[in-house]
């Protein structure tokens, strides 16, 4: 079983958290001018990355806060987290490389 570090509560069991979709999806605007295919891209099309991925997670059975997690979808390794509204730390794509 995994431990995930909530930026507010610290290390907790993974069962307390909920995956809430990929990070940094930008809603297209203005709504009146958004085409069907742009909506489809935003709402449904996914990178579904095999490897290091930037994800939103919520500590729903804890403090209820949402944050971003940098996670490897193959190894389930977690490299770190950052706040909502922030950009990922530079060089995040290389976080999995062995030092």
């Amino acid at each position: 079983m995994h431990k995930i570090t909530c930026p507010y509560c610290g290390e907790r069991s993974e069962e307390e958290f909920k995956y809430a979709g990929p990070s940094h999806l930008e809603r297209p605007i203005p709504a009146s001018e958004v085409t069907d295919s742009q909506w489809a891209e935003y709402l449904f099309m996914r990178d579904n990355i095999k490897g290091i991925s930037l994800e939103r997670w919520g500590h729903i059975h804890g403090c209820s806060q949402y944050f971003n997690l940098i996670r490897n979808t193959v190894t389930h390794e977690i490299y770190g987290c950052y706040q909502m509204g922030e950009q990922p730390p530079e060089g995040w794509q290389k976080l999995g490389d062995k030092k």
Partner: protein
Amino acid sequence: MQHYSVFSLARNAMKHHEDWHKAWRSPPLKEEYEVVIVGGGGHGLATAYYLAKEHNITDVAVIEAGWLGGGNTGRNTITVRSNYLYPESAEFYDFSLKQYEILSRELNFNVMLRQAGLLRLSHSHHDVEMSRRAINAMHMNGVDAEWLTREEIIELAPGVNVSEEARFPIFGGMNQPRGGVARHDGVAWGYARAADDRGVDIIQQCAVTGFEKAADGSHLVVTQKGTVKAKKVALCVAGHSSVLAEMAGFRLPVTSMALQACVSEPLKPFIDTVVLSPDAGVYVSQSDKGEVVMGGGLDLYPSYAQRGNVHTLENIVAGIVEIFPKLRRVKLMRQWAGIVDIVYDSSPIIGHTPVKNMYVNCGFGTGGFKAIPAGGYTLAHTIATDQPHKLTEAFGLNRFETGAFIDEMGAAGIAH
């Protein structure tokens, strides 16, 4: 192809079983094919078979990264059924079940179909009403379904917890008598053997690593064993659909998740039917070897690790023990997971992609084993004619733009 029959069995027994032919060839990859199918799971192999059989297209390669059926096809809990809510799904999945009913004879390969019913338990008054609605929908779609009382369930599924004090009391259940199980690798091998017999090249241990364009507009499929030219390409890679789509330059509305299952030590036969409890979040059947086959819902987050989480397994086992208390002391023998391709409306995507002459079959998520004959049949039609098949018109990628979803989550209730 060496015909399998009781006589060939007897003949080979006399020769100490040393004279059986290989079920399919392992030819080298040619430089060019009319159609390259990526993925040697059930859907890829069935597509190849129906291309050859129905459309006389035999210049075909199936390219598989690992071994045949080593993806979800060989990891699934083998339930077949067609108890869907919407007409589009009912037609598609019932066509599939009908193909299963003739498959062993058609392929000359025993896929061990056992139609002993698929029973979905109702644990509350609300659930009873939903099940009755589903039964009505199925009848209107021409699919078999029946309501069973508590007493009938005791008869059909001995061992279910019918105690008044049960956490999930049993109010009755919905049964699809034609539902049941079939042997997973038998389906993959049967299609592989029959496709090979018609000239299809099956290439194993050969991952596709990229796509390029040839000067004449054909696809160049880059693989571990060299680059192949193909007029048409079909992606049948389930949980890896997004990875292959990215190589080809488009995206899909798919999220890859782990789905787990486990089996117990072998027991004497005690149940024929597949029993499903949406409330406990589990389903059970007993294999021909006697193992109790158990499955539940998806793991909690996207994953490409064919492993599965411990607490999801714990939930499955806890649910099983609620429904079948007598399995309490039985030992688990194996646990595993497959990476399934989850789509927003729990319906498959079959047909065209944004790339010309490239087609896709994906999005079956937790329930595409039962759909292998129909998925292969309809995709072969689309590859051959460049038109959607009548059965899959509603299952194209374009529904994510039009919003014409076929939301089967409510109908199925649980992954299987």
